[in-house]
């Protein structure tokens, strides 16, 4: 039974990580708490609905969703955040929250308040190795998360773009002095982060067979907790915190004798870290 819980935890951890990564990337370069990111995550799931009307295929849906969310991310930073970057912190924060609310309402008005099933039915197999049963759905989510993470790792650590992103996150002025175009770098961070969120949204839509307007609510709060625990702006931290949270949730839910609101764990962890180690696990 323990192994079952672990696999389940790794799957949800994968999702948390993917969503929180976008938040980390954005925070790293712009120092804005981009709450609306959760709205873009939900957009990924909704875009799948449109994608299937054009060409019913899961790969196309992924492509379509990620491109749409990437574009959305680009537009948000260009027209909403950049113009108010010099205002006191509270301004972009409320703007982001307003955008998040607006997106949720748009989803509700366009697609209705009901939960919509994913446009394609998947029949997951359960793989059995000896006494261990591995649900296909969990494996799929976990594997896909790893793939995306690997791609991200490659981008961040092995390309010039990644270098630029890390430089800007470190110190914007110095980076610019070294000739890095911070505007483009920031835009790219948004694009990549939003694409990841869109992928995560789509995966969640598949896994739970549910797409609904407020699906971004919990990820909004949880990814905040993940980046705090991991260290705001630290990619490694986000990965560790994301998977860690997923695992801990699954284990606690399975073994605690009383009703445990799964989402509370993220907050408790967040509060503990804020009190004891606000920089998070890997933060500076």
């Amino acid at each position: 039974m323990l192994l079952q819980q672990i696999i389940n935890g790794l799957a949800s951890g994968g999702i948390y990580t993917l969503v929180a990564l976008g938040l980390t990337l954005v925070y790293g370069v712009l120092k804005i708490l981009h709450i609306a990111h959760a709205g873009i995550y939900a957009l990924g799931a909704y875009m799948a609905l449109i994608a299937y009307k054009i060409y019913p295929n899961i790969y196309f849906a992924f492509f379509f969703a990620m491109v749409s969310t990437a574009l959305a991310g680009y537009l948000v930073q260009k027209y909403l955040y950049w113009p108010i970057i010099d205002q006191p912190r509270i301004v972009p924060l409320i703007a982001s929250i307003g955008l998040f609310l607006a997106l949720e309402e748009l989803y509700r008005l366009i697609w209705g308040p009901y939960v919509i099933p994913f446009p394609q039915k998947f029949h997951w197999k359960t793989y059995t190795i000896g006494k261990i049963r591995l649900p296909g759905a969990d494996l799929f989510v976990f594997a896909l998360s790893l793939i995306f993470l690997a791609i991200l790792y490659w981008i961040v650590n092995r390309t010039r773009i990644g270098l630029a992103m890390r430089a800007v996150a470190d110190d914007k002025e110095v980076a610019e002095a070294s000739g890095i175009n911070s505007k483009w770098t920031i835009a790219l961070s948004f694009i990549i982060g939003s694409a990841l969120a869109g992928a995560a949204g789509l995966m969640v839509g598949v896994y739970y067979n549910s797409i609904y307007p407020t699906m971004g609510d919990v990820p909004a709060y949880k990814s905040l907790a993940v980046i705090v625990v991991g260290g705001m702006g630290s990619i490694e931290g986000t990965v560790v915190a994301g998977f860690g949270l997923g695992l801990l949730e699954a284990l606690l839910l399975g073994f605690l004798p009383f009703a445990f609101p799964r989402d509370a764990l993220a907050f408790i962890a967040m509060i503990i870290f804020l009190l004891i180690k606000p920089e998070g696990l890997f933060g500076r």
Partner: protein
Amino acid sequence: MNYYLTILIYIGINSILALSLNIIVGYAGQISLGHAAFYGIGAYSSALIATKLGVSFWVALPSAIVITAIVGAILGLPSLRVSEDFLAITTIGINFVVQAVFKYVKFFGGALGVSGIPFPSLGGHRFSLAAFAVMTAIFTVISALVAHLINTSWIGLGLKAVREDELAASSSGVNVYKFKVLAFVLGSALAGLAGSLYAHFMMFITADDFGFPLSIAILSMIVIGGIGTVRGAFLGALLLTIMPEVFRPLSDYRMLVYAILLILFMRFLPEGLIGDESIVWKKIRGKA
């Protein structure tokens, strides 16, 4: 008439809330995204004291204010260690934790909330709705005066120093910690007042009334009205309380309009409608 009085009461309570948050965010410059928690603490303390101890509203109210102020001081302590974004997140966390406590701990009524909260009465006579409205108005005016006094006193000076530049303030001998905690204490005390009024008006409260969306709504009030000003807090409270009622015919689009207004204001008019830096205010002043 009844209905309008209800709306007036909501405006009054929200004004007090806005004024209270203004002290923390406007005067002291501390980002607080969890103010609904203090509102809730005020409401729950007043409700529980009145129902479990059987005392009247007139005892519950001041008790609630004191309790909320104390809790405000305690919860304000984390704010000393963190700043800016971390503070924002901490306050969000506080909001959720407080709400969860109300929801899951049996003492607070759990999911069923607290009911049977007594409506205020004087000399055995239950207040009429109009009387409650008048009382709320009086409390609102008192709160405004208190806020104004704070702002123009040495406390206000200290808070402002902390807001503008913490480093400079502390090097000039201002005890930054003391003032930060003071801001939270004063802000929560007023929020506690608002909470008590709310509890005794609704006669029934649940944890769901004090969530994060409310914290954002209160924050929106002072930002839209004009941060750091008493008049801004009033205008913001007025607008945001009336909006859901006025926009009822648009009911399906209400929330979208609200969200878009938030975005537009932050994008184009972050100083608020009648804040000190606002164009609108300057125009009004210019003309005057």
